[in-house]
C-alpha cells in the first residue's frame, strides 16, 4: 500500500478484555516500531522489529503486552486483560533498514479506550 495502515482505527474494550491491534507497514520496509501515545503526551517507545526479529522490547509496560511479526511484514500488538491505564493511541511506524538515515513513516494509529 501507499502508507502504513493500522486497524482498527478505534477500539473500545471492557476492562479485562484482550485486544489485538494490527499494523501493515509499507511494502519492503524492514524495520517496524510500536509506540504508545497517551492523551497530551509524546509517543513512548514500546518495541522494535527488524524483519521478524524483535530486537528491542524494553518499552513494553508489562507482560500483558505482546507483539509479533511472524513473517517480517504485518505486525500485531496484543494486550491481555486490558486495564484503564492502557487507554491510549497506539502508533505503528516502519522504515527502510538504514540505521544512520532513519525516516519513520507512521500510521494514523489505533485509539484504544478501556472502560
Amino acid at each position, binding site marked *: 500500500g501507499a502508507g502504513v495502515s493500522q486497524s482498527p482505527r478505534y477500539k473500545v474494550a471492557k476492562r479485562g478484555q484482550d485486544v489485538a491491534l494490527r499494523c501493515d507497514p509499507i511494502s519492503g520496509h524492514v*524495520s517496524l*516500531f510500536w509506540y504508545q501515545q497517551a492523551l497530551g503526551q*509524546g509517543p513512548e517507545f514500546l518495541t522494535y522489529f527488524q524483519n521478524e526479529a524483535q530486537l528491542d522490547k524494553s518499552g513494553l509496560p508489562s507482560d500483558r503486552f505482546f507483539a509479533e511479526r511472524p513473517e517480517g511484514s504485518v505486525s500485531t500488538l496484543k494486550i491481555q486483560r486490558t486495564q484503564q491505564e492502557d487507554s491510549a493511541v497506539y502508533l505503528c511506524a516502519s522504515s527502510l533498514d538504514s540505521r544512520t538515515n*532513519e525516516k519513520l513513516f*507512521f500510521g494514523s494509529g489505533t485509539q484504544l479506550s478501556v472502560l
Partner: protein
Amino acid sequence: AQSVTQLDSQVPVFEEAPVELRCNYSSSVSVYLFWYVQYPNQGLQLLLKYLSGSTLVKGINGFEAEFNKSQTSFHLRKPSVHISDTAEYFCAVRNAGNNRKLIWGLGTSLAVNP
C-alpha cells in the same frame, strides 16, 4: 538516559509572522535529532533531522532547525508561517549508535491565526 524538553506547549502566531519552536535535550552520548509534525487527523511525518555535518538543517515546508551542541538545543524555525502550518510539532532524540528507540518531547501545538 536521554530526555527531551519542549519549552512551549502552545504557540499562537499570526499568519506570515516568524515562529520558533524550542527543543532542548539531555544525553551523555552522541545523538540524532528529529522534528516530526502531526496535522489534524493525520499520522506523524518527518519534518527534518540532524545526523551529522552542518548544524543548520532544512526540512520540508520551509522549516529549518539548528543543532547547538553547547546549549543542547535543536530549535525549529520558519520565517513566515501559513494557516496550513497549524499542527502539533514533536521533537525527538535517539542514540547515535545502534539503539533505534526515539525519545520524544510532549509536543508543541502551533496555532496560526489569520
